[in-house]
C-alpha cells in the first residue's frame, strides 16, 4: 500500500499541477481516474483527501504571493471534487447495501423469533454464535449460558461422533442431509431432534453454519405409530389374501368332500337310470353353483352370502355349515339390536374371525359344544365365540413359530379388531375351554 500510495501521490501532484496551469478537462479526467484507482486499490476517500493535501502543500511552496496561494487553493478544490466523485457512487452503494442488510437482518430476526424451531449458528470450531428464543423454551437453558461456548456438552455422548462428522462436512462447504441428535436439556433429560444444517458462506469461504432443529419427540412417536399401523394393515391385507385363498381352497375341499360322499352314496345305492340322471343333474347344478361362488369370491374377495345378506345371515350359514360338515353343535345367538347390515369393514372382519375361530375349534379343540354370539349394545358390537374344548395357553401359542397356522390366525384376528378400533381377547386355560371376545366400537352415526 505504501508504494502504491507514494506513486499515486506523485501522479496526483503532477495532474493537479497540470490542472492549475490550465490543463482543463484532461487534467480533470486524470483526477477522476485517480479517484477510481484509489477505490480499486481499496483506499478510502480520506486517504485521497490526505494525498490532495500533501500535493497541494508542495505546490503552494512554489506559489509566490498570498493571493495566488488563495486562488490556487480555490481552484484545486475543483480538482479534488473530481477525484472524489467516484467515491460518491460507492458511498451511495454502501447505503443501499446497508439498507438491504438491515431489512434482511430484520426479516431473519422475525423468522428466528417466531418460528417454533430452534435456529442457531456456530463457528468452524463448534462455538455457538447465536441461538433463537425457542432454544430457551425447549431446553430450559438461558441463551446466555451457551452463546460463545462449545456445542459439544449439549450433545448426547453417543451422538457426538455424528455431530462432529457433520461439522467437518459443513466446513468443507457441503450441505449434509438432515440428521438426528439428542440434546441435553437443563433438567438433564435428553431431547431427540432433527437437525438441518447449512454452511454459512462469506467471500467464498465457510465461516460457520446455520442450523434449524426440530423437536423430534412428537414426530417420533407419531411416526412410529404410523409405521406400526401401516405394518398391521399390510399384514392384515396379506393375511386376508392368504385366507381368501385358503377359504377358496377349503370351500372347494368341503364341496369335493361332499361330492365324494354323494358319489359314495350313489355307488352304494345303485339307483335306476332315471334316479341316476336326476342325481347327476343335481350334482352338475351344484358344481356350477360352486364355480360361480368361487368366481364371485375371487372377484370380490368376499363371501357372497356376506355381501348379499349381511353379517348375521352369513355367520348363521357359517355355523350351519360347520355343524353339518364337522358334526359340531354350533349355537348362534344374537342379543341387543343386532342390525342386518354393518359397515362392510366390520362385517368382513367379524366374518373372518368367526370363520377362523370355528376352523381352529374344529382342528384343535376337540370341543363338543360351541356358541357364537353377536350382540349390539350401546354403540358396541360384540362377538363372542365359546367352546368347551381342551383350551390352550394363549401365551404359549404366541411363542410358536409363525409357520404354525393357528398363530397367524390369532394374530390376524387381533389385527383386524385393532384396525377397527376395537379389542380382541382370548380367555383360555388348558382343560377349561376357550372364549374369544371381540368388541368393536360403532360410531354414533350408525343407524
Amino acid at each position, binding site marked *: 500500500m505504501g508504494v502504491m500510495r507514494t506513486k499515486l501521490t506523485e501522479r496526483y501532484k503532477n495532474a493537479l499541477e497540470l490542472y492549475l496551469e490550465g490543463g482543463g*478537462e484532461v487534467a480533470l*479526467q486524470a483526477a477522476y481516474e485517480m479517484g477510481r484507482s484509489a*477505490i480499486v486499490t481499496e483506499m478510502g476517500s480520506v486517504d485521497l483527501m490526505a494525498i490532495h493535501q500533501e500535493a497541494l502543500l508542495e505546490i503552494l511552496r512554489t506559489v509566490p504571493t498570498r493571493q495566488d496561494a488563495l486562488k490556487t487553493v480555490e481552484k484545486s478544490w475543483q480538482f479534488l*471534487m473530481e477525484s472524489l466523485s467516484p467515491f460518491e*457512487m*460507492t458511498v*451511495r452503494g454502501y447505503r*443501499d*447495501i446497508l439498507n438491504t442488510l438491515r431489512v434482511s437482518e430484520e426479516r431473519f430476526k422475525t423468522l428466528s423469533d417466531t418460528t417454533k424451531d430452534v435456529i442457531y449458528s456456530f463457528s468452524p470450531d463448534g462455538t455457538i454464535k447465536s441461538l433463537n428464543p425457542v432454544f430457551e423454551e425447549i431446553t430450559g437453558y438461558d441463551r446466555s449460558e451457551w452463546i460463545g461456548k462449545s456445542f459439544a456438552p449439549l450433545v448426547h455422548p453417543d451422538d457426538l461422533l455424528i455431530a462432529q462428522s457433520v461439522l467437518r462436512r459443513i466446513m468443507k462447504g457441503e450441505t449434509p442431509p438432515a440428521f438426528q441428535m439428542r440434546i441435553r436439556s437443563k433438567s438433564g433429560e435428553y431431547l431427540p431432534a432433527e437437525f438441518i444444517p447449512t454452511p454459512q458462506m462469506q467471500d467464498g469461504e465457510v465461516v460457520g453454519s446455520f442450523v434449524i432443529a426440530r423437536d423430534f419427540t412428537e414426530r417420533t412417536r407419531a411416526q412410529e405409530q404410523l409405521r406400526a399401523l401401516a405394518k398391521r394393515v399390510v399384514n392384515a391385507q396379506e393375511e386376508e389374501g392368504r385366507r381368501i385363498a385358503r377359504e377358496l381352497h377349503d370351500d372347494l375341499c368341503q364341496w369335493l368332500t361332499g361330492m365324494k360322499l354323494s358319489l359314495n352314496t350313489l355307488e352304494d345305492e345303485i339307483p335306476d337310470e332315471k334316479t341316476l340322471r336326476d342325481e347327476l343333474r343335481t350334482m352338475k347344478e351344484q358344481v356350477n353353483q360352486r364355480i360361480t361362488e368361487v368366481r364371485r369370491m375371487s372377484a370380490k374377495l368376499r363371501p357372497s352370502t356376506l355381501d348379499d345378506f349381511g353379517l348375521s345371515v352369513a355367520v348363521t350359514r357359517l355355523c350351519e355349515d360347520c355343524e353339518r360338515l364337522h358334526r359340531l353343535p354350533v349355537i348362534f345367538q344374537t342379543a341387543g339390536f343386532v342390525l342386518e347390515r354393518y359397515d362392510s369393514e366390520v362385517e368382513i372382519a367379524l366374518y373372518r374371525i368367526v370363520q377362523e375361530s370355528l376352523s381352529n375349534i374344529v382342528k384343535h379343540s376337540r370341543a363338543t359344544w360351541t356358541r357364537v354370539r353377536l350382540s349390539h349394545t350401546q354403540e358396541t358390537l360384540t362377538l363372542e365365540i365359546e367352546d368347551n374344548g381342551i383350551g390352550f395357553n394363549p401365551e404359549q401359542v404366541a411363542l410358536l413359530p409363525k409357520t404354525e397356522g393357528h398363530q397367524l390366525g390369532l394374530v390376524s384376528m387381533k389385527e383386524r379388531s385393532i384396525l377397527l378400533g376395537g379389542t380382541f381377547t382370548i380367555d383360555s386355560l388348558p382343560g377349561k375351554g376357550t372364549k374369544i371376545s371381540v368388541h368393536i366400537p360403532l360410531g354414533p352415526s350408525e343407524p
Partner: protein
Amino acid sequence: MVKYPLQEERIPIRTDADIVLARQRGRALATELGFAQIDRVLIVAAISELARNVIEYAQKGEMVLHSLRSANKKGIEIIMHDEGPGISDITQALQDGYPTRKYLGLGLPGTKRIMDEFNIVSKVGNGTTVTMKKWAS
C-alpha cells in the same frame, strides 16, 4: 417533455481523448442548464463511467446529449450507445459486489445511483444503449 433538437450533440467514443471531449461537452451543457456544481461533477462522472465501458467492451460507440425541458425544470439526457457484444444478464450487471465487482459501486450500478433516471437496453450480439437523465433542482 420537449427535447431541443438543436441541442443534440453526438460525440463518437473510441479513445481516451474522446472521453475527455465527452466530459467536456457534458459539463458545458450541464452548466448551461443551470446544474449546481456537485451535480455537474456527478454528471461528468457518469459520462466517464459509461464511456469507459464502451471502450472496454465495445471498442467504439457514441454519446448523444440532449437538453430537456419539463413544466418547471430543466434537465440533461445522456445516451451512450454501442454496437458491442451486449449484456447477457442485465439484472446481474446492475447488481453490486462479488464476484463481478470486487469494489462496490462503480460501473453501471454506481452510475444508476447518481442519476435521476436510468434505463438500459442490451441484447447479446446487438449492442447496448444506456439512457440516463438528471434534473436540475
